[in-house]
């Protein structure tokens, strides 16, 4: 039982590193970027994250080199603080408390001790009004400094940090908002506004998107939504200002930067091409094309030797002198939606999910780094809105990670769905997946589930796909015919199954691959993959079966399924419902390492804390709230439910796999805490009586059959006459030693905890073998448990 308040989610990774413009240190060795609640320091050469500046309690909204000390960096955050760091050592030097959420930060070398921040405008209550405020940072040695000296510079600015720039030597400041450019002169303390028409004659939108100022000349460059770049000059005159127009981009210009000498202007946008314009020779352009994704920010190192571009796919490209991409820092790609669900590559232990359109990304959770992208669709992505692209919708790995199955589909109309099933083999030589088989139109309708036989290796691998066309198909790796020896083994259809014309939903293999469960609406069918015969049907109306999971290890005789209202557990031996509980489970997953299962419930009222922030930060702010509601313990199963949004938001998703481990720990500690306390403090008598009570109070349906229990019980009675605890220690069953020691700690666990112990059935356990020659492994194990229970119980009995 874990209380809600004890859960604190630490954002571990997967944050957007391209949220704000990155900063290159003055020696070009490091690249700093805001990433979630932290600032990450990457090496520009090795692409590794060398430091992580932790301390902010909300989203970091800006990173800025301190103009007077190039080894220090300011960061601002929505938590209302500006922090000063030594980024080479990762030390927080000072925290300035501003008190309002900060959206961006600017500074200029000529304004010493002053930083300019953008906060929400306090004057009116509009949520989209922002103001630029000058903050005088007090010079004192304290760690935590309250700043009081705030003075508003400009009202009505854009919250987009690209829309504000400092001009030549900090003499003026240019701010773009809507279709208006405002230039504020610090000396004269007045500003000039220049506005454009909202739309020009040809329908192009004149809205300003970004601003850059020339470092030595009085020239302001603005990027516009229609792809034009305007160079404004003579703006110190209110009337005789003039501008020239450059036009190459076809989409909005996302970022503009002048190089430090002012000889070049860099621009980037949707086209994923970095354009370099020669200043004053603007017809001479250089291009760096094929950067992979739309450019969102451009940063230039203070010495001008390196540029870096942030891209919309959470990637930062470091470019040497505009001709060569020197390194790429890639974060987790957050595509439009994660249709594949989250998978773990068994080989690399990487999280696998949709990345760029048509790609699968392999993301390392431990290193917070994208390992690689696998191009599934293998078609050129055409960047155009409204165009239907192939999307990867299903992914499955086999148990060893040597096979990968992907399903891609393109929906042109609702009726016509183009589906391809692709099978990829892991190539040890290249250490990546190689396309083995492409099956065009594997089903007549959309594929709803895909699963591999987990216990491959021993046999040929089997893949099962179920589809809305009413069939499920089994695909088997078939050796090539003898005459085509150049080709390797490929996949072909082995079996087509159907059940009364019902539409199959999910499918699941048992852990050893001996059983396949396929849900057909309300009915769960169990098949034998070896012979493809229908073994059993299970049903628990009402409601379609949504998830199916076989128990693992000691619980492998159970099959869990969820319907819209119920969580059901069937016993496969008896083919009957073992238990069921009423809960709305949206996802059911088995922990691959333990017997635990996680059921994810959707609960009402979960929206209370998700997002009450400003609209600008909203898309970042749904942090995963993990609130284990109850740990209903029955027959060794822990069911935890968790408050989560209905849609699988990627930020939650990142924390999900660690959650398995976390959850496992919590369950263990949660289970031990209440049980361990009394066991240490209470005398022996209650312990023995507890054992009796335990036997008696254990629900009858979780106990083995009475006949087995009886014989074992009696048998143990017989042996226990001479048996002692010390005798037991030196007893013949040496192979039990380990498990018994574990039992020492765990035996006091409450009722069903015995099942959590992974143990191997002793092949040569004389007594059990003799006692029940026809028993299955689980039965043997159950027996042994009962026997041990008896044993301790009797020992205590004898003592007393």
């Amino acid at each position: 039982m874990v209380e809600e308040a004890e859960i604190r989610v630490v954002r571990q990774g997967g944050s957007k590193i391209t949220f704000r413009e990155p900063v290159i240190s003055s020696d070009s060795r490091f690249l700093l970027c805001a990433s979630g609640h932290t600032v990450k320091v990457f090496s520009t050469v090795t692409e590794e994250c060398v430091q992580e500046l932790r301390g902010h309690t909300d989203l970091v909204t800006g990173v800025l080199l301190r103009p007077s000390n190039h080894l220090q960096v300011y960061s601002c955050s929505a938590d209302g603080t500006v922090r000063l760091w030594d980024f080479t050592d990762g030390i927080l030097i000072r925290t300035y408390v501003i008190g309002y959420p900060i959206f961006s930060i600017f500074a200029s070398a000529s304004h010493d001790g002053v930083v300019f921040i953008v906060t929400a405008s306090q004057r009116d209550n509009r949520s989209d009004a922002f103001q630029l405020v000058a903050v005088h940072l007090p010079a004192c040695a304290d760690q935590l400094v309250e700043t009081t000296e705030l003075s508003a510079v400009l009202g009505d600015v854009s919250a987009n940090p690209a829309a504000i720039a400092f001009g030549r030597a900090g003499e003026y400041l240019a701010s773009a908002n809507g279709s208006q450019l405002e230039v504020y002169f610090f000396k004269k303390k007045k500003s000039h506004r220049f506005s454009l028409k909202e739309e020009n004659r040809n329908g192009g939108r004149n809205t300003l998107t970004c601003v850059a100022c020339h470092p030595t000349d009085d020239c302001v460059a603005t990027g516009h939504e229609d792809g034009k770049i305007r160079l404004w000059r003579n703006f110190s005159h209110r009337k005789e200002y003039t501008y020239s127009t450059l036009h190459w981009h076809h989409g909005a210009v996302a970022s503009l930067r002048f190089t430090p000498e002012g000889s070049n202007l860099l621009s980037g946008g949707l086209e994923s091409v970095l354009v370099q314009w020669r200043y004053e020779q603007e017809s001479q352009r250089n291009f760096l094309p094929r950067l992979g994704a739309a450019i969102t920010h451009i940063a230039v190192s203070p010495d001008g030797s390196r540029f870096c571009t942030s891209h919309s796919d959470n990637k930062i490209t470091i470019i040497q002198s505009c001709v060569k991409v020197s390194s790429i820092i890639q974060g987790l790609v957050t595509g439009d939606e994660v249709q594949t669900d989250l998978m773990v590559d068994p080989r690399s232990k990487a999280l696998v999910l949709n990345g760029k359109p048509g790609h699968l990304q392999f993301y390392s959770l431990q290193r917070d780094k994208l390992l690689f992208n696998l191009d599934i669709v293998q078609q050129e992505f055409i960047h155009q809105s409204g165009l239907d692209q192939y999307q990867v919708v299903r992914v499955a790995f086999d148990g060893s990670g040597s096979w990968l199955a992907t399903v891609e589909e393109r929906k042109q109309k609702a009726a016509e769905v183009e589906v391809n099933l692709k099978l990829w083999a892991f190539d040890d030589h290249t250490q990546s997946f190689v396309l083995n088989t492409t099956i065009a139109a594997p089903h007549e309708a959309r594929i709803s589930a895909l699963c591999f036989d987990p216990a491959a290796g021993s046999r040929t691998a089997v893949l099962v796909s179920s589809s809305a066309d009413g069939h499920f198909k089994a695909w088997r790796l078939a050796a090539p015919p003898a005459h085509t020896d150049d080709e390797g083994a490929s996949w072909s259809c082995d079996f087509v199954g159907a059940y009364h014309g019902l539409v199959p939903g999910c499918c699941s293999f048992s852990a050893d691959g001996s059983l396949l469960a396929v849900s057909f609406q309300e009915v769960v069918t169990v098949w034998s993959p070896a012979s493809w015969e229908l073994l059993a049907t299970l049903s628990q109306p009402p409601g379609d079966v949504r998830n199916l999971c076989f128990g693992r290890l000691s619980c492998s005789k159970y099959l869990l399924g969820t319907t819209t209202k119920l969580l059901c557990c069937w016993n496969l031996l008896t083919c009957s419902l073992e238990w069921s509980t009423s809960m709305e489970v949206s996802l059911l997953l088995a922990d691959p390492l333990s017997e635990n299962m996680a059921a994810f419930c959707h609960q009402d009222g979960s929206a209370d804390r998700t997002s009450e922030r400003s609209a600008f930060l909203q898309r970042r702010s749904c942090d995963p709230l993990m609130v284990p509601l109850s740990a209903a313990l029955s027959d060794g199963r822990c069911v935890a439910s968790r408050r989560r949004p209905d849609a699988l938001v990627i930020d939650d998703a990142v924390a999900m796999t660690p959650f398995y481990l976390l959850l496992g720990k919590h369950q263990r500690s949660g289970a031990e805490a209440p049980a361990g306390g009394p066991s240490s403090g209470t005398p022996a008598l209650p312990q023995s009586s507890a054992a009796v009570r335990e036997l008696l109070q254990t629900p009858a349906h979780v106990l083995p059959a009475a006949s087995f229990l009886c014989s074992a019980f009696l048998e143990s009675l017989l042996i226990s006459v001479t048996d002692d605890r010390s005798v037991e220690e030196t007893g013949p069953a040496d192979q039990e030693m380990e498990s018994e020691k574990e039992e020492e700690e765990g035996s006091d666990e409450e009722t069903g905890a015995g099942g959590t112990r992974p143990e191997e059935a002793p092949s040569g356990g004389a007594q059990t073998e003799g006692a029940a020659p026809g028993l299955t492994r689980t039965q043997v194990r159950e027996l042994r448990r009962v026997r041990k229970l008896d044993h301790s119980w009797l020992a205590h009995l004898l003592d007393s």
Partner: protein
Amino acid sequence: MGEFKVHRVRFFDYMPSAIRAMAFNSHTERLAVARADGAVEIFNFADNYFQEKVIPGRDGRAVEALCWVGRRLFSAGLDGELTEYDLENLRPKYSIEAYGGPVWTISGNSQGTLLAAGCEDGTVKMFEILDERIQFQRNLDRQKGRIISLAWHPSGTKMAAGMMDMIRIFDTETGSATHRMLVERGAGASKSKEVVVWSVAFLSDHTVISGDSAGKFQIWDGSTGTLIRSHPVTKWDVLVLSVSQDESSVIAGTSEGTVVQFQFIASTAGQEDKHWFRTRTFKNHSHDVRALVHTDTAVVSGGMDTQLVVRPLLDKVEKNTQESALRKIAFPHRNLVSCAKKAGLLLFQFPDHLELWRLGESDGNGAPGEILPVKRKPEKLIQLKRKGEDHICCSALSPCGSWLAYSTVSSVRLYRLTLSSNSVSIQKVSKLPKELRSVHQLCFSLDSSRLFASSSLSSVVVVALDQTECRCLHTLKHKSGSKQPIHILCPSEDGRWLAAANTDCEIHVFDLHKKKLHCSVPAYSSCPTAVSIHPASCSLVSVHADQQIFEFSLKQKEYTEWSRQLQRQGLHPLWLQRDTPVTRVTFNPTNPAHIVLHDAFMFCIIDQSLPLPKAETKLYNQMVLRSFPQPQRSRESHAFKICKNFQCTLCEKKQGKQPHTNVKMKATQAWS
């Protein structure tokens, strides 16, 4: 609005000629425009960009360059001649052979004493400007290759000449070339082609600016002969440059139809260190920009697409005023069509021929807005080619349809037409009085018995027409002393009055019975663009280039009460903002209170009985009015009933009572 039978005249296939060269006289604010057919037009920028004068062209005269020297206008062309124009008689005054092959350019120095002509044979010929003539003075050092462009230094001591592949700087006192600046050729395939320096400009700080056929806009230091900066402006040619008066801005016209502005701006505020920056790009032309003028407030451009575009510089003018609006002048500001009301004939005037058409007929009675079935289609009766090399400057058709007259710079021709139902005969009247030698405007009286011709010195020649002979009756003269040509002649319907308007903004009314000047309308500052005498009330209605309307009673010799009221109240701002002048005024004979006006894009009936529109009322309210119920309609309606959508109005036909008003629109209908 009254009931009209409307003819759709879509067969006037008039094609304006491309603009070749322009010159602007900033003292008189006159713009001279030379067209590809050799015609020269004078626009008065001070008077709402009104096209004051047209000097017709001539076969074989291709004007390459125009130049104002004081109030005198010179041109040069590939025929190798320099021509001065007589702006009072609208004809070339004299031509002088330059003896250097085709002349590519002429340029006058700022002192107004010398005229330099760049010739094909590589010489720059200097002509001295005398009071009446120009006289060859000397040649500058002859170069290899033709001289394409010339620019004087404001001091007059130096001159830059654009040539093939290079720019030369001459010392005009010694005549020797001091610098030779090589212009880089275009890249790629055009490397082997010579680059043509189409235009040069010489600024007072000895900066030379050049535009060339490789698309470069280059800035040179003229005192050292070095290239300062090169701006690639276009892939094709930079054809023409123009410098503003204060030399802070240069515009360049390209063969892509764009005009690029460069400005001389300090790169950091408050410093003297200025540079030329490319700033704005104007794209108002579909084809080559051949001629450019940078006035103080606007960029005036013209080119192959025949339009004259006045693009105001928004940093020099007040925003959202009439001055800040873009103007496109596409069609001539005068009538090229005359009609014979009774015979149903139309005469179209082209530079080199006349076309006579008979209008279609229909028998139908139809509801308003209906298209009547055409019983007989319009047909072309005569295509009359002009004689001689000179282009037609004016033409007239008598109201009865039996006389046709046209005039060139050198002669007048009069024809007698005989029309029967299926045959047409035309007969030239051989003996014309000698007074009819050079006329600017022709007009027949309404009974077709008189021909009025405006002659030199603002006089009007009255010729009596007879079946047997035609003789000059008398010459009407006024005493204002103006020598400007008469551009409008308007006889009254009863044959008593003749109104004549000249480009000095004067309107004189002659009494034809007494054969003398009756009165002169008080002079107004803007040139009249259309004049007409009301048949019933004998008042003269004049519309001026600034869109003002006056009504002058000929009997009382004073402005009428309606006109005074109009002046007191003022015209609607939207009416004043229109940028095409009204080209004809006429009246509705069934309703004397109706004045009918039209310009190239609009047709308007002014009902003098209705209240004048106030500034806040909607001027263009015809469509809205139609949706109102009757009482509200009469409340909302005002004197100006304007129809802009010809497609729509032309269908709005009822059984017409006066077919004559309709035909006025033909020139515009041809393009609508």
